[in-house]
């Protein structure tokens, strides 16, 4: 049109251009930046837990009892790098210490080596770096043992760091929890989502989810003080009948209490998956004369099965990462045994019980962070898998894929 000075047109343009508001623009940028916090946090968690355990993975940890000693007179003959490696200090710690302190540390180290009792000094295992992967994963015949064994015994003079007993302990308690909680939760989810009267459902769902409001330390307390006492006689009777040893605190008691903790998780996810199956599936089945139960069992459950599977995976992730319940109720003996009546020690309980005693930055400390890293990876993978399954299922049920 050319005539850009027409008042009507200027008004039109004004209405069409966005009003520039720098403050709002800034605020919206801030909102965006803050929304990335969850990503940043997941990243930082992995970074900082893995960082402390990195030397274990790269072979930079030496946990041998007897180590070559350099006398303090060698102080000037050692290069700075040699000195740092000899004293086992991190860069930051090393930079922070003056020569006087470093000399003192050398003296302390030499004295500590002097104080090792002679019989241990002569031990064939005294010069082994027990933090190597072959000692972490494979059985080894330690001095005093009749056969190669998986031993986690970090607080002995010769540090034994085999993680197999801890993995078996974690898996054992988790499996007990799943076997107990999954059928119960899935059955309840079927009832609540498909069979219960809508009014009853509105009341049942939050009631079951109340179970999630019980803190894990309270579930652990309940298992330790109440359940272990009540179950002691029946468990020893059953174990005796089967010819198995048993103890008061064991994988069964801990696993049952773990089950309490994962019931609300499994129930919630499974119920959600069952509810997301379109009503038309059920209506079609009912119209063909199926009973409500048949529609639920033969139509809805198969359609929602991936969601139920995801619920089980999330339950697994929650159970294997649960700490206070197993710390209090499992008995904490790190033995290799698949007997559920035996006392058992899990990965999480080991970290919780031992980190306070571990020397900051020492091999025990790094080993516990390594366990934390493995735990993070396991739960990350199970979460990721469950997420993927649920996402696919919803897309399919809503006809998007």
């Amino acid at each position, binding site marked *: 049109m050319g005539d850009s000075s027409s008042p009507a047109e200027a008004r039109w343009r004004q209405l069409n251009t966005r009003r520039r508001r720098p403050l*709002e623009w800034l605020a*919206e940028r*801030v*909102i965006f930046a*803050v*929304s990335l*916090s*969850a*990503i940043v946090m*997941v990243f930082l*968690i992995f970074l900082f*837990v893995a*960082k*402390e355990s990195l030397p274990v993975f790269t072979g930079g940890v030496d946990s041998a009892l007897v180590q070559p000693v350099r006398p303090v007179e060698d102080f000037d003959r050692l290069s700075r790098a040699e000195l740092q490696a000899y004293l086992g200090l991190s860069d930051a710690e090393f*930079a922070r210490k003056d020569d006087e302190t470093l000399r003192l540390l050398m003296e302390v180290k030499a004295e500590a080596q002097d104080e090792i009792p002679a019989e241990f000094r002569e031990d064939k295992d005294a010069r082994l770096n027990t933090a190597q992967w072959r000692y972490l994963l494979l059985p080894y015949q330690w001095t005093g043992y009749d056969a190669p064994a998986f031993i986690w015994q970090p607080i002995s003079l010769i540090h034994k760091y085999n993680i197999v007993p801890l993995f078996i302990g974690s898996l054992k308690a988790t499996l007990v929890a799943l076997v107990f909680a999954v059928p*119960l939760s899935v*059955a*309840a989810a079927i009832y609540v989502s498909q*069979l*219960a009267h809508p009014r009853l459902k*509105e009341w*049942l769902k*939050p*009631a*079951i989810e*109340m*179970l999630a*409001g*019980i*803190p*894990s*330390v*309270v579930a*652990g307390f*309940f298992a*330790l*003080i*109440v359940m272990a006492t009540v179950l002691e006689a029946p468990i020893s009777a059953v174990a005796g009948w089967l010819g198995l040893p048993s103890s008061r605190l064991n994988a069964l008691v801990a696993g049952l209490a773990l089950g309490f903790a994962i019931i609300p998780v499994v129930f919630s996810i499974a119920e959600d998956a069952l509810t997301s199956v379109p009503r038309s599936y059920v209506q079609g089945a009912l119209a063909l*004369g199926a*009973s*409500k139960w*048949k529609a639920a*069992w033969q139509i809805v459950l198969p359609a929602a099965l991936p969601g139920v599977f995801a619920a089980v995976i999330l339950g697994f992730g929650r159970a*294997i*990462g*649960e*700490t206070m319940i197993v710390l*209090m109720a499992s008995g904490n003996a790190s033995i290799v045994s698949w007997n559920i009546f035996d006392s058992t020690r899990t990965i*999480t309980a080991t*970290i*919780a019980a031992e*980190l*306070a005693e571990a020397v900051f930055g020492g091999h025990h400390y790094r080993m*516990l962070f390594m366990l934390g890293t493995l*735990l*993070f990876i396991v*739960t*990350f993978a199970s*979460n*990721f898998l469950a997420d993927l399954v649920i996402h696919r299922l919803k897309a399919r049920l809503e006809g998007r894929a």
Partner: protein
Amino acid sequence: MTPRASLREAGFRRAGVDHASLLGGGVTLAATAGILAILIVILAVIVVNGAPSLSWRFITTSTARDMFDPDKAGVFPMLVGTSARVILMTLFVVPVGVITAIYLSEYARAASPLTRIIRGAVNNLAGVPSIVFGLFGLGFFIGFIGGTLDELAQGPAAEPRWGKPGILWASLTLAVMTLPVVIVATEESLRAIAPGLREASLALGATKFETVTRVVLPQALPGILTGGILAVSRAAGEVAPILFTGAAYYMATLPGSLTDQFMDLGYHVFVLSTQSPNIDQTKPILFATVLVLLLLTFSLNFVAILIRARIRRSQRAAH
């Protein structure tokens, strides 16, 4: 053949005479009842055993030194410690969680890869084991941030002030842990707001930002409140993340600054159950302490569930 007969032939029976259906319904009903029974038994045992020892004196006494003595023990310092750490946590987690939820519900395009990554991160954060949060708090907040602060403030050799366990680090660790709780609850309440409200605001000439802050947010307040309460209730009972980041076995005084350690209700339950020299003598106060902790977390949970049920009803009405 009548239609009904042919249906019957095809394997369908009339509801009511079908034994499989009766059995299925019965088993699933029993499972539901079983779960409720577990909940009720746990609560009943704790209330019955804890209530007799619960007294005003028990709650307001701070003779923590006699923590195993039923006649002298009190949980006042633990109540103060737990309350302080959850209040401090709320200050960090609520703003960050609410802003993230606003972005996800109001600004983000649902299908964009970034939105999916954020959602994935939130889900993953919710699944990280609590003990790993403890390790993270120790490595990141105490070791890295605290250590750096110490170095900046006083130079290398001095006694650490920030680089050791304290209530600030425990609260921050818990804030990271409860971030998903706040995000999910807030987002749910933002979604419950009728789209027409936003459209009306935009049609009247308000900018997107004005719509979000003056129309959407006030409507979402109950949901934000729910998220905050759920986070507090979850954090109040957590012990594993604070084992290495701030909880103390015994403190002679109440925490006076952000860098002090604190006594904690949940940790105290752990201490009483596992370290008591005479568990039978300690049992009454142990049950009473558990009851105090449960009253705290359950009453909060209950309020959150009530608010949430109301939001869900209004959501159904809006759509």
